[in-house]
């Protein structure tokens, strides 16, 4: 992420937080913040490639996308949406606490964020594992096993004709949510480091850049999910 995130050193006042190659704290902070935003732009393009594929195949294979989308667990997906937006709130509150110098609150909010992040991943795990089971489709007479690997993916019954369309949806589902989950895992790793720093009391209202920069990353991961949720779970639930 940013260099400042990686900066260690115990209980130093703001001035010693200044790295040798910067002139002022303001310059350092602006550089680090800009770096994170630029990094997020590369992340936009990273997910953008998959969204482009999604858009095209959805246009071509709408029928299969609707059928496969309805097989996703909307309840778990919905809970995860609430959990993740909640974690975005807690991280924002954590940044606020750091900004205003409330050490214990900062730690608490960061811990809460971590708990919500882990909850998201646990729910995701259960969603994923159900895709390896052969089961009756919710909305049709088909038997389905939705993980899109050769020899695993299986659709029989009335959906058989659109099986390949459904498989492409599932490829994109796993690619998009898998990449998203990977970002969550990396995020939780960084969060652990930052929470430790917060516990040691390293942040002050003059230097809390790591919390803020991490917050930007975490919010971005949230935004990706904000798009994934309707595009994957809610292609069409009517009719």
């Amino acid at each position, binding site marked *: 992420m940013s260099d400042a995130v990686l900066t260690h050193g115990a209980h130093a006042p703001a001035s010693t937080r200044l790295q040798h190659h910067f002139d*002022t704290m303001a310059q350092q902070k602006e550089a680090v913040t800009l770096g994170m*935003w630029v990094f997020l732009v590369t992340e936009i393009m990273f997910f953008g490639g998959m969204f482009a594929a999604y858009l095209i195949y959805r246009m071509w294979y709408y029928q299969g996308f609707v059928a496969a989308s309805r097989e996703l667990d909307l309840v778990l997906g919905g809970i995860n949406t609430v959990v993740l937006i909640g974690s975005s709130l807690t991280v*924002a*509150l954590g940044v606020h606490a750091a900004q205003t110098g409330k050490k214990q609150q900062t730690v608490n909010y960061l811990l809460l964020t971590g708990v919500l992040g882990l909850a998201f991943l646990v729910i995701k795990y259960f969603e994923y594992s159900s895709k390896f089971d052969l089961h009756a489709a919710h909305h049709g007479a088909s038997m389905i096993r939705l993980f899109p690997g050769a020899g695993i993916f299986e659709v029989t019954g009335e959906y058989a004709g659109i099986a390949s369309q459904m498989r492409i949806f599932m490829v994109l589902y796993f690619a998009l949510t898998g990449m998203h989950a990977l970002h969550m895992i990396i995020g939780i790793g960084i969060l652990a480091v930052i929470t430790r720093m917060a516990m040691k009391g390293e942040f002050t209202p003059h230097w809390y850049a790591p919390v803020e920069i991490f917050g930007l990353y975490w919010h971005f991961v949230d*935004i990706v999910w904000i798009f994934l949720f309707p595009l994957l779970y809610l292609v069409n*639930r009517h009719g």
Partner: protein
Amino acid sequence: MNSRMDAHAHHADLGHEHVTPLGVYFGIFGALMALTAITVGVAWVNLGSLNILVALGVALVKASLVVLYFMHLKYSSKLTWIVVASGLFWMMILFGITMADYLTRGWMISPTILH
């Protein structure tokens, strides 16, 4: 623009940074929850091809709220705005120009393979 050039004006003073009132955060969270409920609800209503537009529109509003308030873009420099805009712009290039091929696949300028 360049903090090295006006270092004297700023010194290392970071105390004047914008602190968002807590109420704003909770308000935004509430709005995000409400919009999530809307996007789920709308999926059950048949709006034809409008469904996807509504879904994307709601997602865009939600994302904007997160970017503007949670990520403090609203109080950030012009450069940050440009960075965000360029990300969106390039994603639109990727989508738009790829679609220039896919959306015209039905139009033929020759007799199709059927005469």
